[in-house]
């Protein structure tokens, strides 16, 4: 038996249908008719015409009809939940007017989509009506189940009545096709319920009457405040002009505590909370409550002035100016009798921070007198500092600590504020969720909801068509921080899949090292990696000059876009215990410090060179870094390494690796034993080794591989010469000669760069200066040119089709002149 009944012939339903079929227009027509009839009646009345009475009667009759239409028909609303089981009363009138108990799901959906409430939910969740219609299914609609689900949804969101948005969310709960669609849309049924609650809050706000803030005579018994108006901001006036803002956090408990504190004997409150937590919003809420005069005690109709420290400071021309102004301000507040003075960023008034002024000696007697109501907004750190420097003052303040709102509450604040910020665009619920998620990950300097609101505001500059979507938020983060948070594009996916090839364009061999690092990056970009740890963390072990640092550089270039996206620390500079503090310096203490750099560029390779030389206490910090993905600086603010690749390099055990390789062993066959040896010998603690994603061994390079390294270095030289359109080419013999001359098994590839510098770059420089190499030429260097048996270098045209036109090779270059030579102007006229 159905829990609900439906009376299709009820009077209410007829009225709902009248409303749906143009009630608003009818009301307008009636109004015009009434005015016309009334004027006509008046005119005829003046002419003493008896028809005036009829017309007046007709106008009166239409007036009564219009009153009924406006006050009854157009004001129809659903009955409160639980008050009846009659569906025609429980349903919103626009839906009830078209409702029939035998409606199929698609028919009901068609009716729902015509209501603005359902359109609100669809737009906010990016739901397309056609897509939903396709997933509604053919099975009969169980109306009873639907209304029960809708009632449950409404009760869950504290809605007093059913609205179309709640019915949409109920459909998503009862239709299997829609239940299956939700995960594809990256949504849950709870998200939809929140969407209905969002609409409910908006409707309640729209329906609320504008409060009376005391009336015309409110301030007649209070003094004038010209100085306060000059050096402060009248928050109450702001609230009075704009009304209570939609989307301000409902902080009833904190407001109660604040009012109680201000009404107490001390009369002054320190509101303590991290930046972004809503201290300033709390002041707006306080202003609204005091203006309304309800639950305010003796503070009813008081006004809040927030003093501006920089304006006050700007008035200083001589000694005592600031003190004089401040005394005048407080004197005025005292005399006015209806003022609460707020010091937003109160630390500026106690000599802390940039542009600060120390007024503690001035404020202390004012607080002791309990004659002025003061609200001080402070961060926990500033409160602690104030406590340590001025205990007498803090003992006179009632502390009120604000805590960060929950995720649900933060999302509600974001949702409501989005309606004010978005302008002519629409913010989707997914954008709010993304703003919450990414703000938590990347903007750790502030608390919720402020940090998420800031990100959402930034996302307004990255519209996705007419929407502010999750993509808009991701783009905002990417443009602000240079991190990659969007899904990989087709090109990027291809690059990731072939990452090894790209790295090998810069690296010779070390295939195993390259493949483990590439795999870690693929895991991170595919969203498989643990998001609470760095993208990847590697310990690179091996001799000098085998490519450890080069691989880190290659990663920065290939994955993070440029070699400059590397933060490199030489750990041999951090050997003392005191260096721990240096490593953890805040951005204010050292803008070039590790944590400041990571905050500025979180999407980087962080390279700790020669980690074995670092102080053991620093190695202990690595445990936290690798485990939790962050370090906390000296100002107690965390810096996230979650978007960084952390690489530590070490030469520890280099000789052992060389011995194994020279004995013909493969890396894989001895790497485990090697790592165990490092632990057993006490060079690394097992807990540190185990926290790296991979311990990667680098093998020494053999002469054949060094020839390839030389070729890479020549490629670098060619990139440098590219603007001059000159290229350098080495013969195989020349490359082998460079390797022979520079080979040192202990130093690997490191001497090769020096060799190329001395024997290639110097030669090329000489040719360019002598005019033997011109734009378009390729300088071919043979063994003699790089220090081997004598043979002339060849400057040839790059045109393969015209080798005959190439001038005969000049004789071998003379030795480089000892002194500076004039640089001859290049003669291009003959070309």
């Amino acid at each position, binding site marked *: 038996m159905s829990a609900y009944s439906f009376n299709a012939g009820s*009077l209410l339903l*007829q*009225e709902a249908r*009248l409303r749906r079929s143009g009630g608003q227009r009818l009301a307008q027509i009636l109004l015009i008719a009434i005015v016309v009839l009334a004027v006509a009646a008046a005119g005829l009345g003046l002419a003493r015409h*008896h*028809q*005036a*009475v*009829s*017309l*007046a*009667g*007709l106008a*009166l*009759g239409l*007036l*009564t*009809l219009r*009153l*009924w239409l406006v*006050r*009854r028909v157009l004001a129809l609303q659903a009955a409160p939940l639980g008050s009846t089981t009659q569906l025609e009363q429980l349903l919103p009138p626009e839906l009830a007017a078209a409702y029939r108990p035998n409606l199929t799901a698609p028919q009901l959906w068609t009716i729902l989509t015509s209501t603005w409430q359902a359109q609100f939910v669809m737009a906010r969740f990016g739901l397309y009506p056609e897509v939903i219609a396709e997933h509604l299914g053919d099975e009969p609609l169980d109306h009873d189940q639907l209304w029960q689900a809708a009632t449950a949804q409404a009760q869950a969101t504290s809605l007093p009545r059913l609205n179309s948005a709640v019915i949409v969310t109920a459909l998503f709960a009862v239709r299997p096709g829609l239940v299956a669609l939700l995960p594809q849309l990256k949504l849950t049924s709870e998200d939809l319920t929140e969407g209905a609650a969002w609409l409910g809050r908006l409707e309640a706000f729209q329906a609320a009457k504008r409060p*009376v803030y*005391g*009336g*015309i*005579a*409110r*301030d*007649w*018994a*209070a*003094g*004038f405040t010209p100085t306060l108006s000059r050096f402060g901001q009248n928050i109450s006036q702001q609230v009075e002009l704009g009304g209570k803002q939609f989307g301000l956090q409902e902080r009833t408990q904190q407001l109660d505590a604040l009012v109680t504190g201000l009404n107490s004997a001390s009369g002054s409150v320190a509101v303590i909370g991290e930046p972004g937590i809503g201290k300033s919003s709390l002041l707006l809420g306080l202003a609204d409550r005091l203006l309304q005069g309800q639950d305010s005690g003796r503070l009813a*109709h008081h006004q809040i002035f927030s003093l501006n420290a920089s304006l006050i400071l700007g008035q200083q021309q001589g000694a005592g100016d600031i003190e004089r102004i401040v005394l005048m301000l407080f004197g005025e507040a005292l*005399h*006015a*009798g209806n003022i609460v003075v707020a010091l937003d960023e109160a630390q500026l008034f106690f000599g802390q921070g940039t542009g600060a002024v120390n007024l503690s000696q001035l404020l202390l007697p004012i607080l002791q007198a309990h004659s002025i109501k003061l609200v001080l907004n402070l961060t926990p750190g500033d409160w602690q500092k104030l406590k340590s420097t001025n205990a007498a003052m803090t003992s006179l303040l009632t502390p009120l600590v604000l805590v960060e709102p929950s995720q649900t509450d933060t999302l509600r604040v974001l949702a409501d504020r989005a309606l004010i910020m978005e302008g002519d665009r629409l913010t989707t619920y997914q954008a709010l969720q993304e703003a919450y998620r990414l703000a938590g990950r990347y903007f750790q300097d502030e608390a919720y909801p402020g940090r998420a609101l800031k990100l959402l505001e930034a996302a307004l500059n990255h519209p996705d068509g007419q929407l502010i979507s999750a993509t808009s938020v991701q783009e905002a983060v990417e443009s602000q921080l240079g991190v990659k948070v969007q899904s990989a594009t087709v090109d990027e996916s291809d690059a990731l899949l072939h990452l090894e090839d790209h790295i090998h364009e810069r690296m010779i061999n070390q295939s195993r090292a390259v493949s483990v690092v590439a795999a870690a990056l693929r895991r991170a970009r595919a969203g498989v990696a643990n998001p609470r740890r760095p993208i990847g963390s590697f310990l690179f072990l091996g001799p000098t000059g085998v490519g450890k640092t080069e691989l880190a550089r290659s990663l920065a270039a290939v994955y993070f876009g440029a070699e400059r996206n590397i933060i490199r620390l030489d750990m041999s500079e951090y050997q003392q215990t005191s260096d721990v503090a240096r490593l953890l310096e805040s951005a204010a203490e050292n803008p070039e410090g590790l944590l400041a750099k990571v905050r500025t560029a979180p999407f980087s390779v962080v390279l700790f060179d020669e980690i074995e030389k670092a102080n053991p206490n620093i190695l202990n910090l690595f445990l936290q870094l690798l485990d939790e993905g962050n370090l906390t600086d000296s100002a107690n603010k965390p810096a996230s390494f979650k978007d960084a690749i952390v690489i530590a390099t070490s030469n520890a055990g280099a000789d052992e690796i060389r011995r194994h390789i020279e004995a013909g062993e493969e890396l894989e066959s001895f790497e485990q034993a090697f790592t165990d040896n490092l632990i057993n010998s006490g060079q690394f603690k097992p807990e540190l080794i185990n926290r790296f994603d991979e311990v990667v061994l680098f093998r020494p390079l053999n002469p054949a591989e060094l020839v390839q390294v030389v070729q890479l270095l020549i490629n670098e030289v060619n990139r440098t010469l590219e603007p001059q359109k000159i290229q350098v080419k080495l013969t195989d013999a020349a490359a082998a000669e460079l390797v022979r001359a520079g080979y040192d098994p202990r130093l690997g590839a490191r001497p090769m760069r020096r060799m190329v510098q001395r024997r290639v770059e110097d030669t090329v420089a000489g040719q360019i200066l002598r005019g033997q190499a011109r734009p378009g030429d390729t300088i071919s260097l043979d063994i003699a040119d790089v220090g081997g048996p004598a043979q002339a270098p060849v400057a040839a045209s790059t045109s393969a089709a015209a080798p005959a036109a190439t001038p005969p090779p000049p004789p071998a270059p003379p030795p480089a002149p000892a002194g500076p030579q004039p640089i001859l102007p290049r003669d291009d006229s003959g070309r």
Partner: protein
Amino acid sequence: MFVIGFLQWWYGPGWRDAGQRVVEMARQTYLNFSVPILLRTLLAPWRRITSSSDGSLEQRARAMLDNVVSRAVGFGVRVIALVTALVMILLIGLGGGLLVLLWPILPPLSLILVAGGLVL
């Protein structure tokens, strides 16, 4: 059908609604004119403009006179506001009361007037 709906509403919720609206208008007027505040501060100095003196008798007398003037100005302005509020509330009460009283006869009156005009 609508006639029944109209009559049901007119002689039930509609009548009550009309009465409530009159009361609400009067209440809003009462609050917008700050009547409770005016009554509480009737004799308070105007905008707290006061003076005090510990000087000679003449100076004290002058300060007292200043204060009396300030209170007198405050009293005068407040009384004017109170009287205005009272008149407005009275007008709303009278007009609204008349409307509520006549409410039941408005529909038949309109019919009578139409018919009467045709007969005359």
